[in-house]
């Protein structure tokens, strides 16, 4: 019996020891990270568990090399005209050909309710209208965003016969830059800019009466409502919003006076802008991003600007039914202007086209596509149209003051795996080089690349001439090779940002992540997600190829962001936009 007992003991003890060993081995083999449930524990996990395990390298371009790079000769190329689709008649069809640059909401042939001007052109071309000499008139409509068209006109890189932006602000901008535009039709179709807000927020505000722009502005500036809006360098609605905010802050609503550039810079007006900006969740590249963010979480984003025509369509969609629209600013009149380079026959043709577009059947078609004269427009409630100089001053002030005195820290985490070889990488490099012009001095940038392993290429540093040179030199030397250890790269990028957060908790922290493929090395999303979630860093993912969309969407959703789709053709604009609004 004693023998049996001791055999039993031995078996029990042996089993226990084997079990312990297995648990210990399992723990050692685990690629996971310690429990993360706060920003502090995220940094701790990064520094103590994650980063020591990564095979990260540091390859920094020496300053003696970087100093050779010139920072003031990088000019942003103009958009290429051929990138913007041309509908209706094509050049070379004979007769008097007129091409009109038109904003997207009335020249988007792909969408049924956004192609009014194209349909008008088709109808006009079918009518075989002629000029006085008997030659037929042929009309082409080029869909091009108002801001992009303005850039081409100001640079004299294009000479269309007509230009129809969303609103008169762009006409004023080009006039201020010596483009002599003559009004052919002050309004082709009516539209209105306004805020979209949840009905519940509207009800709270309406306790004091009808909700006006002024009331909403006060609620925003007082910290009651958070907002988002698109890039005021590119969006007609955002530019209108910016102008209207400054105009109202300057107190011109009583007498309807003109805003001046000096007033924009005054402490009284700037203080309103600063307060407003403190409530801005994000400035997005496009209005579509705003809609996605609004749907995602209305407790975080309570108001965003939109044109009324878009709003009518949006209200039909789930999630937007319970919203209200608060108009602001100058009407979006979609004017039509001609130029002094037009020949007399082109001028005549443009005038005839304008008359046709304003005819009752064409205006009825416009109404069907959501272009309506709202009460706000009928009552002439908006501010006066400002000069181009004031608008340029408004944009400049926005760029300088948009961060309300907070420093922005952005680390770019860039895929340099083998599949990036060739055009993808060279377009990306060119895009980064050009976009760097958009970075405000004093903000901080860094750059990490990843292929088989993460490489720290440019430590986070204040963007002065030296950091700019280092950035250009670093970008120049990027090469493609190897696999895709994306999350390893993200962890290295986050390490720099979280360390900086300890020193400047008031800063804004961003990580731009560009990848062209799926992760095949190192950390996985599941292993990294808690650190990312608790980092207080906003991620800007760019899908630059065949990526795991679900994962990138999940990364963007951690904080108020959306995935941007990049291609070698658009990556330059993408970077420029992102740097312009964030850095």
């Amino acid at each position, binding site marked *: 019996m004693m023998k049996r007992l001791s055999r039993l003991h031995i078996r029990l003890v042996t089993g226990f020891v084997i079990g312990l060993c297995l648990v210990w081995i399992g723990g050692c083999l685990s690629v996971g990270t310690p429990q993360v449930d706060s920003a502090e524990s995220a940094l701790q996990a990064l520094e103590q568990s994650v980063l020591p395990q990564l095979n990260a390298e540091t390859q920094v371009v020496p300053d003696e090399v970087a100093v050779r790079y010139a920072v003031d000769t990088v000019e942003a190329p103009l958009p290429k005209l051929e990138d913007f689709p041309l509908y209706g008649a094509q050049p070379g069809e004979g007769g008097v050909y007129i091409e009109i640059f038109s904003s997207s909401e009335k020249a988007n042939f792909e969408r049924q309710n956004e192609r009014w001007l194209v349909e008008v052109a088709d109808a006009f071309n079918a009518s075989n209208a002629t000029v006085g000499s008997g030659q037929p008139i042929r009309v082409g409509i080029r869909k091009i965003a108002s801001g992009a068209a303005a850039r081409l006109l100001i640079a004299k890189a294009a000479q269309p016969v007509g230009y129809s932006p969303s609103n008169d602000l762009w006409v004023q901008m080009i006039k201020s830059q010596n483009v002599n535009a003559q009004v052919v039709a002050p309004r082709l179709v009516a539209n209105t800019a306004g805020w979209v807000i949840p009905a519940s927020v509207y009800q709270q505000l309406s306790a004091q009466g009808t909700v006006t722009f*002024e*009331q909403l*502005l*006060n*609620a925003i*500036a*007082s910290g009651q409502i958070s907002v988002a809006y698109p890039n005021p360098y590119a969006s007609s609605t955002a530019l209108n919003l910016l102008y209207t905010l400054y105009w*109202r*802050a*300057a*107190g011109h609503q009583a007498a309807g006076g003109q805003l001046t550039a000096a007033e924009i810079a005054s*402490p*009284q007006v700037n*203080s*309103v802008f*600063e*307060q407003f900006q*403190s409530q801005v969740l994000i400035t997005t590249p496009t209005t579509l991003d705003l809609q996605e963010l609004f749907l995602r979480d209305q407790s975080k984003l309570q108001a965003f600007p939109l044109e009324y025509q878009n709003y009518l369509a949006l209200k039909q969609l789930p999630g937007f039914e319970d919203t209200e629209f608060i108009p602001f600013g100058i009407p979006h009149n979609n004017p039509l202007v001609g130029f002094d380079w037009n020949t007399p026959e082109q001028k005549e043709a443009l005038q005839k086209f304008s008359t046709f577009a304003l005819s009752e059947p064409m205006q009825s078609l416009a109404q069907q596509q959501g272009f309506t004269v709202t009460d706000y427009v009928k009552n002439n409630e908006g501010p006066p149209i400002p000069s181009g100089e004031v608008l340029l001053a408004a944009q400049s002030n926005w760029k300088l003051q948009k961060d309300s005195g907070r420093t922005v820290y952005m680390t770019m985490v860039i895929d340099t795996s083998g599949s990036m070889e060739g055009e993808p990488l060279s377009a990306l490099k060119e895009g980064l080089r050009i976009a760097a012009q958009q970075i405000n001095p004093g903000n901080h940038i860094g750059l990490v690349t990843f292929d088989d392993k993460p490489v720290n290429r440019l430590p986070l540093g204040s963007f002065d001439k030296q950091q700019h040179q280092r950035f250009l030199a670093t970008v120049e030397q990027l090469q493609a090779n190897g696999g895709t250890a994306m999350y390893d790269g993200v962890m290295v990028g986050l390490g720099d940002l979280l360390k900086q957060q300890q020193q400047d908790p008031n800063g804004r922290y961003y990580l731009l992540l560009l990848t062209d493929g799926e992760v095949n090395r190192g950390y996985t999303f599941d292993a990294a997600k808690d650190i990312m979630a608790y980092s207080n860093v906003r991620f800007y993912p760019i899908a630059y190829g065949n990526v795991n969309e679900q994962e990138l969407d999940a990364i963007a959703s951690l904080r108020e962001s959306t995935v941007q789709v990049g291609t070698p053709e658009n990556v330059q604009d993408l970077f420029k936009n992102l740097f312009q609004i964030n850095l």
Partner: protein
Amino acid sequence: MKPTPNLIRTLGLGWLAYLLVGFALSQTGGGNKIQVVIDRSYCAPTSWQQVADEYAQLYRQHQQKQLTIESVTLVNDLGEEILRVPPSAEEIAGLNTFGLPGRDRIDAIVQASPDAKVLSCQP
């Protein structure tokens, strides 16, 4: 000894009077009641300190029941925000000021409540 109806009546009336006086005191409590109007139009930080100090004094008196701040209204030319619970002196000291003065709004409030105390850094 059994309480007589007279005794009960006297005691009851006495308690009732006591309760009524107590209630009246609680309503009149801290002496004067005032409405405070704070001009939150843009003010340089050094000038705002003066406004904050004035409010701090009023708030101390409110806490010591020497007066009662019924409400605090923050005003500029964009609008008004009425705070039914008086903010602390620190909250007012840390308030962000913005925009132009709302003189018309302040005048309207003072017209409706002549005893309103207006605090402003504007001349």
